[in-house]
């Protein structure tokens, strides 16, 4: 550990259970590659591929993998720059960029347990500011490649959803040949809005479903009402106007999604959103009650009785457990319980692991 005068930055690196302290020039941090080399050197892991992350001022674990986010990390660290290093093959991508208010403990525990195997994601998002849970692409393995299911997290952000829809027509392949059918399209994205900032929706994308309900046959006003009614947890399935950026499924994904054979195109049922969790659907359940002019409180769920319909949705689920669409498949249509769902993070029994692997959807 080196004490440094001002202008240098105290840095604490952690790899597995080992800590290293060193210091950096705050004003001249250098390039990411140099920093990466330095870490390998300091931790004495010269030939190990690692992922580097840091804890930002909000307490979020954000990645360092290019010059930009490296500089951001150095410039914002105060007073200490905490670095987490993981072996690349062990890396838990889901730990990154999440809302640490609820997740902190899990983040650390996951990172600290290198034996918690996770698959590599295909898209490495690099800019730190993108690591807020604003949107995600879900159900890639069960949708046709030409479709994209996008989830917008209005919850927790004050950004407007920021898009408009319009009537239009699209061409469908039917048994009778090509047919022009009416459809609903995204007509405008508001600059700075949630929809635009995610980059997952674009003007002229055709809207196919809203939270698992097909929009065909519904009027523009109906679809508008459905979207607004679901606005706190909006899942839109679109056929992107630009089909070049589609996620292409390949052998690697099919290995990880054990269900891909029976959810492939012919068996594709539009009415099931695989990653559609009733308890999250109930994020709008957060009605507030103020009793006797007191403090506002969230309305609790009534204790479910045996005949209650709601018993299936009586789950106090940790919000973090379903981030980014990581959810064990086996859970999807079952009755959730808090213990079950967080299993992904809590249980690290090597025997169980292999069983789970086949049931995890990976982006």
């Amino acid at each position, binding site marked *: 550990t080196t004490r440094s005068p001002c202008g240098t930055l105290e840095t604490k690196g952690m790899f597995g259970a080992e800590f290293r302290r060193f210091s950096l020039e705050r004003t001249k941090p250098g390039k990411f590659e140099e920093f990466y080399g330095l870490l390998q050197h300091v931790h004495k892991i010269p030939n190990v591929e690692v992922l580097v992350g840091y804890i930002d001022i909000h307490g979020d674990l954000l990645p360092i993998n290019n010059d930009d986010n490296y500089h951001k990390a150095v410039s914002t660290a105060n007073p200490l720059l905490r670095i987490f290093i993981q072996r690349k093959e062990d890396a838990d991508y889901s730990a990154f960029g999440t809302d640490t208010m609820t997740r902190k403990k899990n983040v650390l525990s996951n990172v600290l347990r290198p034996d918690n195997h996770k698959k590599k994601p295909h898209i490495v998002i690099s800019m730190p500011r993108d690591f807020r849970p604003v949107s995600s692409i879900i159900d890639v393995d069960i949708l046709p490649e030409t479709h994209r299911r996008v989830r917008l997290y*209005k919850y927790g952000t004050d950004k*407007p*959803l*920021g*898009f*408009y*829809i*319009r*009537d*239009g027509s699209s061409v469908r392949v039917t048994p009778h040949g090509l047919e022009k059918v009416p459809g609903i399209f995204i*007509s*405008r994205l508001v600059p700075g809005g949630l*929809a635009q900032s995610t980059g997952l929706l674009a003007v002229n994308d055709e809207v196919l479903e809203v*939270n698992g*309900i097909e*929009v065909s046959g*519904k*009027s*523009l*006003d*109906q*679809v*508008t*009402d*459905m*979207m*607004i*009614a*679901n*606005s*706190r947890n909006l899942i839109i399935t679109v056929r992107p106007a630009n089909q070049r950026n589609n996620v292409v499924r390949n052998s690697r994904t099919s290995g990880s999604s054990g269900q891909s054979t029976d959810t492939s195109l012919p068996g594709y049922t539009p*009415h099931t959103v695989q990653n*559609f969790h*009733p308890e999250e659907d109930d*994020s*709008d*359940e*957060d*009605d*507030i*009650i*103020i*009793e*006797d*002019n007191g403090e*506002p409180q969230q*309305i*609790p*769920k*009534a*204790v479910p009785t045996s005949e*209650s*319909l*709601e018993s*299936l*949705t009586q789950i106090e689920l940790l919000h973090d457990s379903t981030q980014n669409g990581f959810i064990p498949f086996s859970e999807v*249509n079952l009755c959730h319980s808090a213990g079950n769902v967080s299993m992904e993070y809590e249980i690290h029994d090597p025997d169980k692991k292999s069983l789970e692997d086949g049931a995890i959807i990976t982006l």
Partner: protein
Amino acid sequence: MRRFLRHGHDPVRERLKRDLFQFNKTVEHGFPHQPSALGYSPFLHLMAIGTRSGAIKLYGAPGVEFMGLHEENNTVMQIHFIPGQCQLVTLLDDNSLHLWSLKQRSGASELQEEQRFTLRGPPGSPPSATQITVVLPHSSREVLYLGTESGNVFVVELPSFRLLEDRTITSEAVLQRVPEDYRNRRSFELVEALREHPRNPGHILIGYSRGLIVLWDLHNKRVSRHFLGSQQLENLFWQKDGHQIISCHYDGSYAQWPVSNDDRQLEPLESKVPYGPFPCKAISKIYWQTTKNGPPYIIFQGGMPRASYGDRHSISVVHGSQQIAFDFTSRVIDFFVVCNADPAAEFDDPSAMVVLAEEELVVIDLKSAGWPAVHPPYLASLHCSAITCSHHVSNIPLKLWERVISAGSKQNSHYSDMPWPIDGGTNLAPDPPQRDLLLTGHEDGTVRFWDASGVCLRLLYKLSTVRVFLTDADPNDNMNPLGEDEWPPLRKVGSFDPYSDDPRLGIQKIYLCKYSGYLTVAGTAGQILVMELNDEESEHVVDHAEADLLQDQEGYKWKGHERLKARDEPVRFEPGFQPFVLVQCQPPAVVTSLALHSEWKLVAFGTSHGFGLFDHQQKRLVFVKCTLHPSDQLALEGPLSRVKSLKKSLRQSFRRIRRSRVSSRKRRVQEANSKFDQDALQEMELAPIQRKIEARSAEDSFTGFVRTLYFADTFLRDSSRHCPSLWAGTNGGTVYAFCLRVPPAERRMDEPVRAEQAKEIQLMHRAPVVGILVLDGHGTPLPEPLEVAHDLSKSPDMQGSHQLLVVSEEQFKVFTLPKVSSKLKLKLTALEGCRVRKVTVANFGSCKTEDYSENNLAILTNLGDIQIISLPFLKLQIRYPCIRKEDVSGIASCVFTKYGQGFYLISPSEFERFSLSTKWLVEPRCVVDTQEITGNNYLHNKSGMEKATRKSRVIALSYGERNSRRIHVGHGLSNGGGK
């Protein structure tokens, strides 16, 4: 996970659902929109009205109604009954003829279209050659004579509509023996009138537009008499004895022509311009009705002096020295005279005149002195003043019913007591199962009470709130009282008056307590009136109070209308509902919700700014609550700013239309220039309809708008003690609950009513709250105030825990009470994309099991669908499409009854009645039978109701458990005249 997948198919429940629910549109009440033709059968005593949308409606004795619709939806131009048959022929504006029949099936008559026919000329002939102008069904029932624009009269056989070409009466044949000089003046003439000789069916009278009238001998196919008129002809009429014909003309004259032995009549016997000498408008139709003792009745339409009265819609009746020009409120479509229909009778002896005007039906009693109007039992003009709201009260106690009728009869004293003259057919429908009132609020500040128990919607009583206020137009000052010697002798008849003196008087909300006779109505300018029923006339000062809903919101200026000025001096009120207290909201925004608790003597009201509670016993404001979001400028400023934005959007859309029009014109002009073409296209694409997708926020406009108010005696604070409470729901998804302390009856006047806010629930989805309901321990909705006290409902279960049902536009949620925890919900918008527009609790009885009934929610969505949702488990039971989703005013006007029926406006003047219940169904069932009809049944055979053989149909008339207790009602009404 998906609720609609979960409750799959329970066969027992499915069967029960079939016994409970059934959707029927049963009858249309009110006055047909845009009537275009009138027909009458003196033989059947039935009247037929055709409309511009192709509907025909037949009316006879009260309860006898039939409806038909032409597929083409074209305007019905003429309706003619076939003499002596249950058949009629209609002519549409596409020149097609349609034959309709009343056919009996399983004991009741049905109106069916049998044949259709379009008259076609030889190929290449102009369309005018076969354009039908007049239709004459011959008394032989075998043929129709069709006068055309070409001047030819074609003959078609009935019922086949086969054209009998050899019998065509060509204009050439008619003109053969007309003097040369007379014929030369007439190049082209259309047939204006066809009339059969009253005594000799072998002769028909043909009138041509330029004035020529001939009597045509059907057997010899030649003209037997010529009447060489020189005035442009409008219509013809035979005197009953066949000795004289009357012609009426475009210049406002009518002429009598003798039918003598002379082959040629050059001049009329007498010609008269009744409203001359200055130029007059045409007389378009005339009746000459003989009487046994005295001069004839001459009845004609039009003929008013062109310059000064040319705009009047008049029909004049002249009888000896008596003459009245009835002045109608809207254009006269047609009229007929009810008289002795017996062809053998010597005289006509007219008894009544029936006039179809564009907006109402007026019947004049010609037998009684002064020719008073007859109060129609149906075809009421609902839109006399535009309907602004409606309220339905089921199962009215007899006592209240009688008092309302008695108050109404005093208002209707100017009507004739003649029995309804159109009395054909027999009503077979069972007596209405209960007495129902439909109350309509109107733009002019009136509330009309309709008997909605049966097929005929009848006005019982009209209440006006205008007297309470000082308005510009004093209702008492008569604008132009007619002097004795006024000429023409005009007399205004009819009640259609669409012009409101002051739009602030408009009625927006109504609530009637059928047990106590308390009525509260609220209006456009924030006025709330509480009234009670008093059988005596009264003169008193209406107490008044102000409710400042903005309270501490400072610095905002209300830019809407001013509040109404209340009269400070005593006001005279006629017997009926008399206001005793007026509350005026400040700012005077439209009242958006209203609730009355007649037992606690409290009235709650809400506007876009907040809500308040008023104690009408002590006449004291209990509290007000401002619900306004401070940033909600729109709601604060009032309706004007909305107008502005509407104007703006209108301007924009006009601009868009103009742009696209310009561009399309451009395209036409410069078709070769593809660049322009593209520009135009692009421009069109720039302006598609788009919808913004945004979550609702607390800052949205009109979140404070109070949508619903509800009184309940429930467990608000703790589960051991229940207390009175007031619930309010806003547009922004907030529910407020106030705990009320109402002093016991003996100290009711001494202690104040207190209120304290106990809960505030903010629904996260922030959708407007449209309904609040408390369910008792059994999951049954709490009864209405006084319902239990009058022994008409079981006491609510206060042992089990109560539940709160909040209905927002988007979803239904059940919460536990007193601790508010969410228990159940049903999402509507998120799954189906529709929103709740109307919601009510309705009791559905089983048509199979006498004493089974259950409470469900009936809702109407913005797409016009009706859904029934079970209580308390919120399961969708059934869904019916009811109203077109484009029919916004229809959806907005819908009102449900407590027993699964409903009403909505299909036009400004008509309610469609529908039923969701298998058990409570009010629909016409009647029979028209030719056998029963004798030649001289013109005497009013009472109402068909009485002679009806009551073949009650399979509607079970038992009322179920709750209802059977209601039969011994009546005395329940506390005499509320204590002023």
